[in-house]
């Protein structure tokens, strides 16, 4: 059974290079050492068995078809030392979903302005690179004293995060919210990424065979298929601006009940990826009323970086301090343009959830040196202020550039209440048949002819055909014109 959760930032990248502080001379020296070591004659032990079948860009397998929870308890087939049925169901999951195919294509032929201008452009990955240079600059100035501190945290540290980090994160979140919300460090749990955060919460809030309601379309990155909880998509319609309708939630809840599924919570993202809707106060309180009435939890996956407007934004964190059924998750690493750091934050005022979650972080803690880095950078209030402003401006600018370019091509974008790192785009006018096949044909054309990886609505469980998500946070300004040219090529030939 799986829990499909809309999460940001769980994706593949190219094989990376070198690390914080360390440098090419160091790496070259050691790579040479390694090369020499590998080539000298070693002991007579025979080589180990050959490696498992290669899958160069092993991608997180999003589960697009739903399997009933009870099937996970079925007994496994026989054979040499069988694995569990939950392992079998993971193993059977398709390697060929659009999401995975797209990522593999980018990985094997990645666009680069100077070295590979004909390569595949990445617009299907919810990853924010727009402000990485700011962090790099900060690091260049501050690396020395960071490194000195590493050895003092080499010993066992609290699994749910160093106290100083929680204080720094609380301070950072306050700055993001412009002081309008009080974040208590004691209500913060740090873990190794958004996936881990959702994993932990789902284990705390639901039992095997229970369900969560998730408004669709939602991000295709599937997460929780090891805890036996089912996802029930709650469709949102373009006619409603893809807004969350309480009627739809109510219907989904009742249908689940008829199927004998106990709903334990709602999972929303804010901004709602990929459609970009920002939470309004009206929606916030409607969802809260619904959750209160049904006595279920609310998990809100929030982003601090992707607000393209500078006006005050609404967040579930506003009520997290007083409502113990509300739990907020932050993809902190993506917010800081550092997806490789894998840092997720859980914020909740529910003492029992906090207690269990803190204990569960032993299975997914963040390494201490990374925490030190975060403490340092997040405590630099001046830097944080500049970072938040600059990042927002860049996100806003890039968003607008993409919208304007698409409109010139006659492609409608949702822009009114937009947040998030995606343009959610209606290309139903360009698909041959108004169907899933029509949508996938266009997607394939965009990938193979247009050489750009975008997210088809189908992968997000969108019930209307022809919608696509174009993530712009991976692009530079120059790339935008290339994107437009390539789209033009595809739609004109269509």
């Amino acid at each position, binding site marked *: 059974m799986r829990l499909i959760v809309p999460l940001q930032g769980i994706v593949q990248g190219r094989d*990376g*290079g070198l690390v*914080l502080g360390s*440098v090419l001379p160091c790496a070259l020296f*050691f790579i040479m*050492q390694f090369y020499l070591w590998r080539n000298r004659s070693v002991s007579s032990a025979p080589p180990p068995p050959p490696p498992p079948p290669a899958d160069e860009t*092993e991608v997180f397998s999003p589960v697009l078809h739903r399997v009933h929870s009870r099937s996970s308890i079925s007994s496994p087939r026989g054979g040499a*030392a069988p694995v569990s049925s939950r392992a079998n169901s993971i193993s059977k999951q398709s390697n060929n979903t659009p999401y995975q195919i797209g990522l593999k294509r980018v990985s094997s032929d990645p666009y680069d302005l100077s070295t590979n201008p004909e390569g595949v452009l990445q617009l299907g990955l919810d990853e924010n690179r727009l402000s990485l240079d700011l962090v790099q600059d900060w690091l260049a100035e501050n*690396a020395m004293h960071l490194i000195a501190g590493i050895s003092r945290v080499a010993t066992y540290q609290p699994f749910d995060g160093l106290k100083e980090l929680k204080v720094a994160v609380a301070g950072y979140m306050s700055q993001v919210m412009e002081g309008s919300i009080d974040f208590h460090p004691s209500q913060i749990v740090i873990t190794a990424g958004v996936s881990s955060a959702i994993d932990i919460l789902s284990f705390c809030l639901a039992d095997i065979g229970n369900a969560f309601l998730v408004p669709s379309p939602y991000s295709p990155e599937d997460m929780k298929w090891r805890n036996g909880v089912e996802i029930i998509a709650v469709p949102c319609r373009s006619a409603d601006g893809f807004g969350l309708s309480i009627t739809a939630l109510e219907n989904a809840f009742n249908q689940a009940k008829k199927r004998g599924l106990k709903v334990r919570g709602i999972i929303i993202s804010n901004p709602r990826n990929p459609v970009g809707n920002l939470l309004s106060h009206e929606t916030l309180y409607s969802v809260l009323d619904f959750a209160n009435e049904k006595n279920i939890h609310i998990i809100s996956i929030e982003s601090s970086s992707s607000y393209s407007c500078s006006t005050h934004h609404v967040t579930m964190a506003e009520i997290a301090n007083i409502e113990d059924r509300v739990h907020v998750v932050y993809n902190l690493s993506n917010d800081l343009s550092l*997806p490789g750091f894998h840092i997720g934050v859980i914020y909740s005022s529910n003492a029992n959830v906090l207690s269990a979650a803190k204990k569960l972080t032993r299975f997914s803690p963040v390494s201490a040196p990374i925490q030190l880095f975060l403490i340092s950078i997040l405590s630099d209030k001046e830097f944080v202020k500049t970072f938040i402003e600059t990042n927002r401006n860049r996100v806003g600018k890039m968003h607008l550039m993409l919208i304007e370019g698409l409109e010139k091509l006659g492609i409608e974008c949702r822009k009114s209440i937009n947040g998030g790192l995606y343009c959610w785009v209606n290309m139903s006018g360009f698909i041959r048949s108004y169907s899933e096949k029509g949508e996938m044909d266009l997607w394939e054309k965009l990938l193979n002819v247009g050489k750009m990886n975008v997210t088809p609505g189908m992968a997000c469980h969108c019930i209307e055909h022809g919608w696509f998500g174009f993530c712009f946070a991976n692009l530079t300004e120059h790339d935008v014109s290339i994107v437009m040219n390539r789209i033009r090529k595809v739609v004109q030939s269509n």
Partner: protein
Amino acid sequence: MEIELSKVAVSSAHGEDSPYFAGWKAYDENPYDEVHNPSGIIQMGLAENQVSFDMVEEYLEEHSEQALLGKKNKRSSFRENALFQDYHGLLSFRKAMASFMEQIRGGKAKFNPERIVLTAGVTAANELLTFILTNPGDALLVPTPYYPGLDRDLRWRTGAKIIPIHCESSNGYQVTPKTMEVAYQNAQSMNMKVRGVLITNPSNPLGVTIPRSTLEEIFNFVIQKNIHLVSDEIYSGSVFSSSDFVSIAEILVSKNYKEAERVHIVYSLSKDLGLPGFRVGTIYSYNDKVVTIARRMSSFSLISSQTQHLLACMLLDENFTEKYIRVNRERLLKRQQLMVNGLREYGIECLEGNACLFSWMNLSPFLEEPTMESELVLWNSIVNEVKLNISPGSSCHCVEPGWFRICFANMSEKTLEVALERIGDFILKRRANK
């Protein structure tokens, strides 16, 4: 109305209410400090290696300096790393782990970087393997005494059960075909499907390596029952004499990797390198399917790319690793001898250990009665009167009362001497009272 949580959340399977952790709590409230709190509780329940950390520290400091040269390069490398999210992990780091594991085993087994799956610590690795190998309600057989954390790591979220393979001091706590069969039948009688055997080699809490012949018997047993074998070799680099340690990997080599697909090794840098704060663990599986599934599941427990890179540099530096492994072994042996001899002076014997960061101490002669209750009474006195936190055998599921795990590597020599003095006073007082 109060909102409900899951069964996992309210379960006490996290084990933090047991004596093992109660002692830690007592320590947290009154920790020993040479200067500021010399009458506080000395922590001897934490298996952490601080005897060789100076070498690691020196390395980190030296190479970080180098890192500050070549600014231009540093910028681009940071960027690539900051964006690298692939759950395969950096190839350089996997190569480094494979090479380090080979070095520890004196080259007697080879490790393929493509079979290395990274997790944020062995705690995560053990749990992950349990998710993969068992369905809720299935059983893993684990020799006793075992690390108390396994009760939580293997059972809490997974719903798996542990059936103990009871071992006794009479044969040096060796697992035998007979005791394995008894445990297997025990599980069957409770309608539990046995999915595998999990061993820790060298053993926690015993501090001894598992002999080759025993490993072969265990391997034969899992083949016969068509189940898995997980070998937690987290202390493999902490065996005092390199020739003493036989890894399950060597057994597989000797069998030409026949039946290897049921074997999975778990390892971490936390104990051997004294870097528990870095949270670096790995699963090395000889089973293709397990590697693939484990890799996907490792997304729940990722190691930052930066941490991977920093350690890759260090582990690929053969000059460093060769020296570190050798010196670490020497220092651990010295520290163990200091403790064992010190205890012997007061008439306390330990199981003859050849590895790890602790000794298995026999206090059964000092029990009022040969019962677990007496053991806990004695333990209470040791924590609260003697002011030492040690781990009672009962929390490790030992069947014989009176044994305790006592750590020696997480403190300075001076502190160890203070601890020994306190034990001495306690023993003398006891004798006087009798």
